[in-house]
């Protein structure tokens, strides 16, 4: 992490960058006028900490995405697409601006550090991302499922989790016949 290379956090990447733009030593792209950062898993927590220091007051949203069936999505040239992505949306209030952080998480080791100590509001969101995608958040204070039953098998928002593949049974109900 190198702070202060581009102190203006609201800066956006040029439309057709000959040399990729960087912020906090992290690749920056633009999607529909929104700034997107692409840190690696190792840079992830430092990037978020730098953003917090730069006035991003809240993690508004954290969610996962599974790109199993779409491995060739558009990404900056230096970024190798992995199966999972953790997408973090942050907001700054003065001046009002947003930034998005997309982290590539390999399926072989789906682990990222938790942001709990920076923004404690991610607790529920990270539990949801774990529940839905099976991405493990290291050092999370409550690494349990949140939406699915605690004894559920699998992670439903993964692309290889078929719709209707699991017959749903209410807990405690008698088996059919």
């Amino acid at each position, binding site marked *: 992490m190198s702070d202060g290379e581009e102190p203006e956090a609201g800066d956006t990447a040029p439309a057709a960058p000959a040399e990729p733009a960087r912020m906090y030593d992290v690749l920056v792209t633009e999607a529909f006028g929104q700034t997107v950062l692409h840190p690696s898993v190792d840079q992830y927590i430092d990037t978020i900490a730098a953003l917090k220091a730069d006035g991003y007051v809240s993690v*508004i*949203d954290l969610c996962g995405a599974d790109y199993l069936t779409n491995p060739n*999505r558009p990404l900056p040239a230096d970024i190798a697409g992995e199966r999972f992505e953790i997408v973090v*949306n942050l907001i700054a209030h003065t001046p009002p601006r947003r930034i998005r952080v997309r982290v590539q998480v390999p399926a072989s080791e789906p682990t990222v550090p938790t942001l*709990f100590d920076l923004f404690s509001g991610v607790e529920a969101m990270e539990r949801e991302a774990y529940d839905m995608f099976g991405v493990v958040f290291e050092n999370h*204070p409550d690494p349990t499922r949140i939406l699915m039953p*605690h004894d559920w098998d699998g992670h439903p928002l993964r692309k290889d989790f078929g*719709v209707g593949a699991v017959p749903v049974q209410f807990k405690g109900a008698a088996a059919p016949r």
Partner: protein
Amino acid sequence: MTILEQPVSTDAAERVFRRGDDSAVLRISEADAEMVETLDIDPMSDEPMIVNMGPVHPSTHGVLRLVLEMKGEQVLRSKPVIGYLHTGMEKTGEQLSYLQGGTNVTRMDYASPLFNELVFSMATEQLLGIDVPPRAQWIRTMMCELNRISSHMLFQATNGMDVGAVSMMLYGNRLREETLRILEKITGLRMNHNYIRPGGVAVDLPDGWREDVSGLLDMLLPLIDEFDELLTGQPIFRERLQGVGAINVDECLALGVTGPILRGSGYAWDLRRDMPYLNYAELDFDVIVGTYGDCFDRYAVRLNEARESIKIVQQCIEKMPAGDYRLQDKKVTPPPRARIDDSMEALIHHFKIFTEGFKVPEGEVYVAVESPRGELGCYMVSDGGAHPYRMHIRAPSFVNLQTMPHMMQDALVADVVAIISSVDPVLGEVDR
């Protein structure tokens, strides 16, 4: 009447970062929480005991379950357990086309369905790179504000009933029903409208809408003023809410809280004013803030926000332009019914839209609007097909629920009910 002191905390977000036993959050697993009922605890002893409140409890606004660690009447730690209404709507969203998606998301926050449709449509439109005609924008603005009124009236009804002002159930719901009547007249349905769609709205405003909406506003204002007499000045009501469930700005920001809870603690942040979308930049309204961040402030913020919404709807009536109510791009919106009989292209477009849907260019986008509960966001990824590749809804209630353990620490059981009510969660959106 008790005069409240400003909570003594400037940089006191510290408590929401606690991990251990001193945290207000009782971090035990769902399974352990079920087990405690089989534990051999003497109920007469002084030991803290764990009580499961809900998921079927009249004051939990649906199917919220709270695991409370109690010492007598006092709550030590707590944890909201959710998921009882989880139906995998984000997964369902990946199976539906962009046109069908509205019917899915509108069922998430069922007290303010138009906002869900709005954020979904706005995300789709950004990916498509289309602009919606001005009249459609104004219709959307007006409908959303009407929906905000109905949602806040529902809050007044349930909040009043939860703290013992049972007549509020009738007073609040009467105003909600009157508002829903107008929504029904315009959209055809009381709830789950599927009215705001990518490209505009489903149908134009019906004849006589000006009189209907103006009549509603004229009726609402004096009836909302009645609430002041019924509730705001009532010592019993104030005693139940003042100083209960206080939370400060730093804690709200650390927890990602938005909406009336954040504003109730005295922080003026409203996406409608600060990051305007639709026509809010051209409208004149105030952002309501509280001072102490307690249950009473949250009640007052919502009550006055309803008044501001009335102001906004009035301006919408005055400023409503003529023109198209939806984009005339036949790749996105279906052609008028009459055209189908005499135009082959119209028939083809109609058939294509309703069988395979329209394709959306590859990309990812995050769009947010200010729903009655806070920031409602939609993160949408398209792979170039006719269905979203990933559709995530950032539900305000889901995030706001995390404030509950902190608000409830050291409160009494009776306050727990007031606090749940003042967070105003909609479990359909929490669980999705």
